[in-house]
């Protein structure tokens, strides 16, 4: 197969960091080439070099047989290499057409006025090619995540992109939208377009990719052809070692103990028509499954007092509770590790110490003042316990990896010695290696009697961790699956609102 885009020995240094230490990559026409690796492996930097956002410090790149050295995304895109960002970069206040033509608006003759008609037609054509069901005039703010992605891709199409780079394209899509995106990728391939595909979700890569390049620590860790492409092979290359298989957890005593958390006909403000019943016993890991928008986050936030419930009851160790806010919930022994740790979890500019102590400052106060010694001791203890890789408790958390940041948020709440731990997407944005550490930690905590209720979109995670999977659809519990019967198919069936063959076994 011919090569359309290639990188040879690409080097990119940041102040003191070697992000890429001589990386090779090549991709031909009509090919879907996956790029996989842990966070910080250099995937994004390589893509940015190819798309003109970063300039390599060494090595060479070629495109269609010539030297490729774009100095900006605009230059790369006009040459035919378009990057679709992980976090969609659209102006929400503008229409789809205005976004598609942004920076390349057709003019009315010599005047500095936009030729709206031409813009609309161009956009409509591009949207049609990506299979969009909405017109060019709709404001982007009214589009769902998957539709916004189509706008981004249409933008690339509109620029006659021959190489389309998709960086974590499914991270905010529902499974339906993901399926549609896959169809589009197949179609683009048939149209002879080169697709560079980056994703943490290895299932997607197995489904889509013709070949995969694996990066580790800024180096090529391997190359897998379609025949060699397996999950195990990718993981082994990404982490550089084999992951230990999950150990079985003792079941002793769990089922018999009284529930520590009970939701009785709890109705959240997001789904006023759905009442949720759910129990979690000490030592139990209960997974909340469901599609994006099924109400998992809303349910956890309602239990934690972040949202007011419409009706129903939350019982902690049999006692009915009314939480007016997270403070009350924390005082009753609950903890919530939120979904978006940068937005909802961390003080990014502060150190590990300040972040770890935040939830327990007032419990350790002495005459209204922060107990500095206790604070340092707590931070050091959690760092030790969770294996946070940090140079010291004063290290600013912004500089930690995703997995270590997550451990800091978990440590903050473990310092409060909760009896119930709520977690929303426990390992989102966490490397494969650190992910396994978090799983082992949660299992250890459960073995020590902690009740864990976690929401996850990651099917492997649910099946790996949960003793029971509670599936939500439109805010309603559509079924509860015990570990022995929880399969990917069963969960998906219930998550999409079906219940065929999977009896509701509420406990």
């Amino acid at each position, binding site marked *: 197969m011919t090569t359309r885009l290639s990188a040879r020995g690409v080097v990119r240094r940041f102040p003191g960091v070697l992000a890429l230490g001589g990386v090779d990559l090549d991709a031909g026409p009509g090919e879907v080439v996956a790029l996989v690796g842990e966070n910080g492996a250099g995937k994004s930097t390589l893509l940015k070099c190819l798309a003109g956002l970063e300039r390599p410090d060494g090595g060479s790149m070629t495109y269609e047989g010539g030297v490729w050295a774009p100095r900006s995304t605009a230059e790369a895109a006009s040459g035919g290499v378009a990057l679709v960002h992980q976090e969609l970069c659209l102006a929400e206040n503008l229409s789809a057409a205005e976004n598609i033509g942004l920076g390349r608006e057709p003019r009315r003759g010599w005047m500095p006025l936009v030729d709206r008609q031409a813009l609309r037609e161009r956009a409509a054509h591009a949207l049609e090619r990506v299979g969009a069901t909405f017109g060019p005039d709709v404001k982007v703010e009214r589009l769902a995540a998957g539709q916004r992605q189509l706008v981004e891709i249409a933008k690339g199409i509109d620029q006659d992109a021959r190489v389309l780079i998709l960086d974590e394209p499914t991270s905010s899509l529902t499974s339906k939208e993901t399926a549609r995106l896959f169809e589009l990728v197949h179609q683009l391939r048939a149209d002879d377009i080169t697709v560079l595909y980056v994703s943490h979700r290895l299932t997607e890569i197995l489904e889509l990719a013709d070949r995969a390049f694996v990066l580790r620590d800024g180096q090529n860790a391997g190359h897998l052809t379609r025949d060699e492409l397996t999950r195990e092979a990718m993981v082994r290359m990404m982490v550089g070692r084999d992951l230990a298989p999950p150990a079985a957890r003792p079941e002793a005593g769990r089922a018999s103990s009284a529930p520590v958390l009970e939701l009785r006909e709890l109705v959240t403000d997001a789904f006023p028509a759905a009442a949720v019943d759910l129990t979690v016993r000490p030592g139990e890991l209960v997974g909340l499954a469901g599609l994006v928008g099924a109400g998992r986050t809303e349910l956890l936030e309602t239990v934690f007092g972040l949202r007011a419930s419409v009706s129903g009851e939350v019982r902690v160790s049999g006692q009915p509770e009314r939480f007016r806010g997270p403070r009350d919930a924390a005082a009753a022994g609950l903890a919530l590790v939120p979904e978006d740790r940068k937005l909802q979890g961390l*003080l990014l500019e502060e150190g590990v110490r300040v972040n770890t102590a935040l939830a327990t400052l007032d419990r350790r106060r002495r005459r209204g003042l922060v107990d500095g010694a206790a604070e340092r001791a707590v931070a050091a203890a959690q760092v030790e316990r969770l294996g946070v*890789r940090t140079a010291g408790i004063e290290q600013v958390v912004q500089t930690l990896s995703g997995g270590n940041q997550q451990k800091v948020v978990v440590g903050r709440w473990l310092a409060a010695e909760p009896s119930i731990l709520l977690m929303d997407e426990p390992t989102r944005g966490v490397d494969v290696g650190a992910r396994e550490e978090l799983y082992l930690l949660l299992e250890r905590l459960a073995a020590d009697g902690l009740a864990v209720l976690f929401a996850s979109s990651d099917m492997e995670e649910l099946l790996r961790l949960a003793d029971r999977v509670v599936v939500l659809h439109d805010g309603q519990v559509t079924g509860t699956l015990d570990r022995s019967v929880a399969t990917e198919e069963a969960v998906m069936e219930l998550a999409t609102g079906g219940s065929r063959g999977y009896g509701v076994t509420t406990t």
Partner: protein
Amino acid sequence: MTDSTGAREVQVDGSSRLAGWGKVLGIFGLLVAIVVTTGAMNPRFFGAENLENVLQRTALFGIIGIGAAFPIVTAGIDLSIGSVIALVATSLPLLLDAGVPAGAAVVAVLLLAAGLGVIHGLLITRMGLQPFVVTLCGLLVYRGVARYIVDDQTMGFGSDHDGLRSLATGRPFSIGALDVPAPALVLVAVAVLAAVFLGRSVWGRWMLALGRNATAARYAGVPVERVTILAYVICSLLAGVGGVLFALDVNSVQPASMGNFYELYAIAAAVLGGCSLRGGEGSILGVVLGAAVMRLLYNSIVLLGIPSQLEFAIVGGVLLLGAVADEVVRRLAEARRARERARARTERTT
């Protein structure tokens, strides 16, 4: 993976605490530079009378500057300080004229000021209004009310309240030839309390945390609303204290002009002293030094015979230089942080 390298007590990159000290040192250097330059060019600078005057003004503006720092730490702002000063400064003589005992009158106007802070805080937290808008309205409303209640008349204390006035004009003790003005003692007391509150207390830590990331603070169980309200109460209360002292100091309160622009002086002192308008950062010592720098600049302009019309231009220029220097330092620190991160990463992989 329980064998962690985490417990090593190595201080890598500048913790925010150290960065804060850097700012304070920077502003202190600026202060020393102004003192040395002005003193060298005009020896009258070191005269007891001049120093007492600078100290007096620094104390008054330092108090309201410390107040201004609290909303700023929460990533908010209070623009109503000057008008609160005007309202307090007109209400106090009004109450005294009505025969209210001095002590009760002072307590009453301070409660009034604190009450205004409560209103600001409630509007910002419960109604979700922007601090800028709420306190801009305060700026307009309190000025209007102050002028209305005394019918734009100039208010004073005459000679009946010399005891009370000594709070502002008194010189309780001397250091050599220098008679220390009473407000300087008030400033020291306020500054110590504020510094302990912000730097050591649980509520102060909460305030800094919510200034960094209010959402994360709420998720961590910080009573975000109450802490925010408290920040505005402290600000208005200290504006009230400032208002009482300013009024007693000048003994001639013109409702239309009393305290005009003082919120901007106060905010400038806070920013010069290292408070970031992005929130989450601030040092009380820095704010006091910032207020001192502002007053010293003004004093230099007078003593060095610089046209007084240039006052704002010079103060603005210094403030801008400070902001630019701060940004440059921040970028250097960030680059260093990136290097540390790289080193940590290579250590991990080897």
